[in-house]
């Protein structure tokens, strides 16, 4: 039996976010939000482990109430319980303050074996939160995990596959452990429609909302106050046009492809 906690983020669909070059801000108006894509892989990994070893899957997120939609989607995928950390005092948090709040919430949940995060978010792409939460909980943490090879509940250890530049590392860690996973390590399942409806209709059964007080947070370590990072300015990077060429299948076309790949140092 494993207690697994997955941290997710409800993010704007960045493909639709436009940059306002005059104001230097992002135009998020009318942009729908989605579950941060690698977080779906994190949920899938957790559900697969639950199916294999038994146990429970919790999903947590620190966000405004609009993120309930994402949490319900996670429940529909199969999570047993979702917890939304929502409080005005959490606003303006950077990764440190976020990690502090998440760690406090995880401690409040109490017993846990594996905590899983998506490697990074599509809207800020720091990759901080997984490792930071690990540090704050004082447990081992592994990033860029590709798969969980096995869990030994008797000796309380886990074997992990970790993607590195030149290959794959196989690591063994004690439990509990915090891991973060990249997008595409598995195929996230489709949220079961009837369960999505259930999570909507019987929200009380599946979703809990916690405030800063619920997790006993130190007010100086959450929100803007607990955040050493400041966004000073946003600059738009000029977009590179992607070029596309279509050639009929032929030897010349293949030669051209090989030449191009060599030019771009792919081969």
């Amino acid at each position: 039996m494993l207690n697994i906690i997955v941290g997710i983020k409800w993010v704007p669909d960045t493909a639709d976010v436009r940059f306002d070059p005059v104001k230097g801000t992002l135009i998020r108006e009318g942009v729908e939000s989605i579950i941060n894509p690698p977080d779906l892989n994190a949920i899938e990994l957790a559900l697969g482990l639950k199916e294999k070893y038994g146990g429970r899957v919790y999903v947590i997120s620190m966000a405004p109430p609009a993120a309930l939609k994402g949490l319900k989607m996670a429940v529909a995928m199969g999570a047993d319980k979702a917890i939304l950390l929502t409080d005005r005092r959490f606003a303006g948090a950077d990764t440190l303050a976020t990690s502090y709040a998440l760690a406090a919430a995880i401690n409040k949940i109490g017993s846990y074996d594996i905590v899983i995060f998506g490697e990074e978010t599509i809207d800020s792409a720091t990759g901080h939160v997984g490792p930071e939460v690990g540090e704050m909980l004082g447990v081992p943490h592994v990033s860029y995990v590709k798969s969980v090879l096995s869990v030994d509940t008797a000796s309380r250890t886990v074997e992990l596959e970790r993607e590195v530049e030149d290959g794959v590392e196989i690591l063994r860690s004690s439990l509990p452990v915090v891991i973060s996973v990249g997008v595409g390590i598995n195929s996230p399942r489709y949220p079961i429609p009837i369960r999505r409806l259930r999570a909507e209709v019987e929200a009380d059964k599946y979703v809990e909302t916690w405030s800063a007080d619920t997790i006993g947070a130190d007010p100086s370590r959450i929100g803007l106050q607990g955040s050493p990072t400041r966004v000073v300015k946003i600059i738009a990077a000029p977009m590179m046009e992607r070029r596309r060429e279509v050639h009929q299948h032929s030897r010349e076309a293949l030669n051209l492809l090989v030449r191009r790949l060599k030019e771009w140092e792919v081969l």
Partner: protein
Amino acid sequence: MNNLSLRMLKRRLPTAGLKLTPMAIQREHLFMVPEWAVSLHYVLMALALALALFGAYRRFSAYGVKVADLPSTLRERVGLVLGSEARLLRERYGGLMHTLIVAGLVALIVGTILVGLEHDVVMKVSPGQRILVGDAYLAFEFILDLAGLLFVVGLLMAIVRRAFFKPARLENRGEDVAILLLLLYGGLSGFLMEGLRIASPAFSHQQYVKAAFVGYAISRAFLGLEGLEGIYAYLWTSHSLTMAIAIPLLIYSKLRHLPLFFMSPTYGLRELKAPFSLDEVLRSKRLDFKVGLESLDALSWGQRVNLDACVNCGRCQDACPAYRANRVLSPKAVVQRLRGVMVAGVRGAAVGSALREDELWSCTTCGECAITCPIFINPMRYILEARRHLVTNLGRVPTSALFNMMIRGNPYGLPRSERKSWVKSLNVGYAREGEEVEVLLWIGCAGAYDARAQRVVKTLTSMLSGLNVKFAVLEEEECCGELARRLGDEVLFQEIVRRNAEILKRYSFKAIVTPCPHCYNSFKNDYPEFGVRLNVKSHVELIRELVARGRIEVKKPLGKVVVYHDPCYLRNYNEVLTEPREALKAIPGLKLVEAARHFCCGGGGGGSWIEAEGVRVNVQRLEDLLEVRPDVIATACPYCIGMFEDALKSKGLEGKLEVKDVCEVLASALG
């Protein structure tokens, strides 16, 4: 009987020169039949009827038949009898064979009932009274002999077909063969007895019996033979036994399709009733409903009767594009296996015990099976209900299209901003509140995100602008939800309907027009159930109107051979057949040709989104169309176009042949 009918009868009798004496001739009941045989006959009939009634009672209670619904079902079904025969006659030999057997059998049954009525009711109630007297009796004899002849010929045709040129879709099960032989024996023994009766010296009215022309012909072989009476009694008893077996077979064998045809409610292609109302669920917060074919217990009584009515004829299988492409699906097998599990009475049997998932995902929802079945069974409906269970209850779906629709409002999973910037490039006005337009153009997801379909929309909008049609598109358009419904996600579908209902309410338009038959069908046939009633038109209907009203003037000739491929959702679901053809025919010089028969392109019901094993449906359909040697394949659906262009590529025919939307063909002739 009056003189008029007597004259008519004289004219129609095959043997000329008959002298008919009204009111003289009548049936000699139970002629040459000994007492013991008569008693045995009544016992056999009583047993047969008891067995049949017992079987009917057991079966009908197992179906859970709603007796109150039966009269309306019966009325509807009587109206479908001719349609049923017409469906059978699409295959000439098999259809004719069935028509002969049915026509013969029905006349024989009516005749037997009349004889029984006369002997056991009329003559008992008022001795000396008759129904069948004189020329009426002669007509009766003639008609019944003719009926018997048709019956026997039909049965022989069936036996010859099964023995020598059996279509691949048929199986020769013991039941199939035994029934044919039994019925044939019934017919032949009837004629033989008639011959013996007429040949008997004791038989009166010799001069009149030529009306019974078959029996009369046979009787010539027995003239002057002795001891016929002894044989006759046994022959008569065996004939009686044949009937005694055949009557319960109307319940216990595939012959049950005869009674069940008349008590099967019809499940049309268009109505796919919602298992729950999302609005109601959200309001009441109650989830006490079942979705889809979770187990066979979920079948309605009507669906059970339909399953049990199937005779395994396999016409649906021949019509199925997936079966033709060697995919795992056969609609006949789907119905037969469901029927098998149902009849075995396995309570709560999971659908998985009868149907495979890959089978369910092979269906293109073209509806050919349903519009082909002579009993008006809709095999596709069971597939769709099973999909509903698989997807809505279990979340099992072999494509990410639904997830894409859920998060990005289109099955392609492309960002909404891509649609927005492309629509902007069209230079078409957005619908505005309080400003009525003639046409609200619903672009559809293909039209908005697929490069080829975008070109169709571009052509269509340029054409409409050029004709000064006052139209607009929606800035906030997202998926219509059709794909969710056909793939079986009823929650997502209804969420999308709610969203679209909200949006469409804001604007005023005379008609909503779409170049996608899938959106078209969903708006027309799925949405009304949720209170969304729209004046929906396919773009080909609009174009046809504009041509008819002279707003589109086609002057430039187009000397090309064009084959029109019907999109299933226009043809099978909505009978939009003439409009696209008439629009094309308006082009001078264009030669419109037709493929031998309709088949689906393979794109519907999620087909465009699911990778399938086997020969590809689109390649086969392309080959059908190539047979009529067209220069252009015209159609009216973005998925059909995509399917054929893919098929052309895989056959190495890219660029050799054009695949165009009807509006593109017209635009090329506008100059």
